[in-house]
């Protein structure tokens, strides 16, 4: 396990390098000049050139890239082209909001998917199962930009229970978390249901029944635990979707997270900030995938990575 983890940690570096390289090339390839956006078209050419020199944007792309990598090696993500604050400071200011939202969305997904998935499997072909299927289809089919406003209208305007947007107390978190977590909940519900239905016919379940164990114990301990591997896989993969989805959800709910920051940085061609944001998102994604692999081992002790 130790060797495996070390191996995976070492693999993070080339993966991250590849990610930041692609992002660096893409952001420089798209049309739009940050100097034009900063100074406007009326600025004198000499002023534009001077600023371009000051920001190092007059250098060949390869040199800019090496400069960026050198900064990265010393954990220096550079400064925002716009307000000269350090990129790491800007990201660290917004990161807690995104972590909060992502974790809340996962919590919502678990809270919805586990009971629904278990009930659907336990009551196969009943109205509960059909309801869970409808929920899954609904959750997958509803785009965030539609679901968010609909939830706002219902819970914030009609019922008046929750705030419409912004970040504040726990009330502010519920609707964006529900919006963001809905698709994941839908997928997990189906995975849990099918995993349980597959597991429930295994020999060891029959043995458990023969031993006289209660149905609750059989379903929640033996069947559910054994069907968790596929759930863990999906959770790991869906985490990336949550991060990507947070860009839209954060915009809809005026949530001051890293998704909105990324969007603003792209619009203003703030190269260092875009690179910093993507790097953080990539690191989070890779870290969660690593965590997923560790969870495999915990969920199924038969999995041995070192062999």
């Amino acid at each position, binding site marked *: 396990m130790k060797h495996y983890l070390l191996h995976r940690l070492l693999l993070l570096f080339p993966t991250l390098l590849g990610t930041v390289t692609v992002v660096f090339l893409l952001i420089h390839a798209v049309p739009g000049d940050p100097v034009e*956006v900063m100074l406007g078209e009326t600025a004198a050419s000499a002023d534009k050139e001077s600023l371009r020199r000051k920001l190092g944007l007059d250098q060949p792309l390869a040199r800019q890239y090496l400069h960026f990598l050198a900064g990265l090696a010393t954990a220096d993500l550079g400064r925002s082209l*716009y307000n000269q604050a350090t990129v790491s400071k800007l990201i660290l200011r917004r990161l807690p909001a995104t972590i909060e939202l992502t974790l809340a969305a996962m919590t919502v997904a678990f809270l919805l998917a586990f009971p629904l998935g278990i009930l659907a499997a*336990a009551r196969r072909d009943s109205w509960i199962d059909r309801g869970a299927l409808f929920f899954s289809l609904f959750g997958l089919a509803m785009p965030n930009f539609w679901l968010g406003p609909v939830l706002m209208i219902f819970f*914030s305007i009609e019922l008046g*229970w929750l705030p419409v947007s912004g970040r504040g107390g726990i*009330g502010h978190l*519920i609707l964006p978390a529900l919006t963001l977590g809905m698709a994941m909940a839908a997928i997990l519900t189906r995975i849990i249901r099918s995993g349980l239905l597959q597991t429930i016919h295994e020999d060891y379940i029959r043995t458990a029944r023969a031993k006289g164990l209660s149905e*609750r114990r059989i379903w929640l301990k033996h069947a559910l635990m054994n069907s968790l591997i596929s759930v863990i896989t999906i959770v790991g993969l869906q985490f990336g979707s949550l991060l990507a989805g947070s860009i839209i959800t954060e915009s809809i709910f005026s949530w001051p997270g890293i998704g909105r920051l990324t969007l603003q940085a792209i619009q203003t061609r703030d190269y260092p900030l875009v690179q910093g944001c993507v790097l953080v998102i990539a690191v989070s994604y890779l870290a969660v995938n690593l965590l997923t692999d560790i969870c495999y081992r915990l969920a199924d002790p038969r999995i041995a990575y070192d062999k």
Partner: protein
Amino acid sequence: MVLSKYISRKVNLKIPFLLIFLCPAAFFCACRRSAESEKPPNTLVVALESGPTHLDPRYAMDADSERISALIFNSLVRPDKNSRLQPELAESWQAIDERTYVFQIRKGVSFHNGKPLTAADVKYTYESILDPGSRSPKRGAFKFLQDVDQLGPYEVRFRLAIPFAPFMEELTLGIVPQAAAADGAAGGWTLIGSGPFTLAEFSPGERVVLKANASYWEGAPPLSGMVFKVIPDAIVRVLEFRKGTVDFIQNYFEPDMLPWMKKNTRAAILSEQGNIFQYIAMNLDHPILRRPEVREAIGHAIDREAIIRNILKGLAIPATGLLSPEHWAYESGVRRLEYNPEEAKRLLDQAGFPDPDGDGPLPRFKLSYKTTTLDLRKRIAEALKEQLARVGIELEVRAFEWGTFYGDIGKGNFHIYSLDWVGTKDPDIYYDLFHSSSVPPNGRNRGRYRNQELDALLERGRRTTILDERKRIYSRVQEILADDLPYIPLWWGKNVAVMQPAVRGFDLYPDGKLISLKKVSLSSAKPGS
């Protein structure tokens, strides 16, 4: 309970069942407190779309930045509701000659830190913009300024390198205290102005919090403070207003939301003609668009009234040019482009672009139309596409995010695009938009329009300080542009403000300025619907 028993007949799954229903309920109960305790008393909450990027007046370029900055900083002069310049920090001024102006600064004005505002601060503010090291985006606009001298504690002299008629317009810049570090947005210095509000918090992309300046020289504002909330989504802004957590929105909503707001809220709605000019620009280096008949045909093919009625819900009037009828230099006698598809077809035939198959599907020619990803702009683009298709012109609508769109139009990488100009003050803007020397990167003549007669007029217009003569010059400029059509005028938009019934005393400005918020008060009426 019945349901629970039913489930537990075979499998005891009470726990997950309870989780489904109890957790959300617990959440809802827990959240009500935080939702209600958001708004401080006597504070106006204003919704913005993208919010300011810089509040330091030397760096404020976008509309939100300029509007909020004007509430924190005073300037020498300030345009009134009719765009006439009124003294603010300047008590009086005198033009010594065409290139020299002397200003007497108002005594008894203090910055928010209690330090008196003097001529030294005025001199510092302008010199810091001229300093290349400051990287102020406004430096280009002050290239006519030779020097600024302090003649006394409250007297300052501006000397211009050349006679420059729009000079006074540039004095609407907010005055910062001496030795304020460059770029307040970076947090290098606390933004200290002398305006009616002080800055309490600035989180770019999130919110700006202002507190009333109790010792403001014109008298303390009635409000205790203001919160400018950035809410990127138009629907959410309107829902926040409906809930009563936002008190005021100006222009930042889709026109078709207005009828809904009228019906579903108790909003007080103010609407007045503004000077927001929407236009279509064409690339005159393009072999088809170079032909004047084609540009005129496009102008005749557009049914402005239909778009204003159906998409803009009446919040605009058809335009004849950049300057709106309220502007002192507006020329009403220019050629008008009436909706006339038959005339458009005739002009296209005459230009050598006959319809290959009559009423059939084949177009005379195909052009691309670039726009931004804003929903309203895309809907307008689709309407234009349909209208031009009726005369045989195929438009390929391409929507880009702002950075790409802006980069493309600056480089001339477009056939047709549409944008608007907001808050046009001096007609010298024509120099920047249509003079041959203003082709990017030297200006904003993005369509590459070249006309020697117009160039000569624009050069005279900026050097002449006699108003009547300037009026004559710009009348001719407007006539030429209406004939040559480097821009096809679409409409002048109206400004609309929706306010909770408790909001009193707001005045709409044609350019959307928010300066009248300093006079706004909140009555005790309950907000919301």
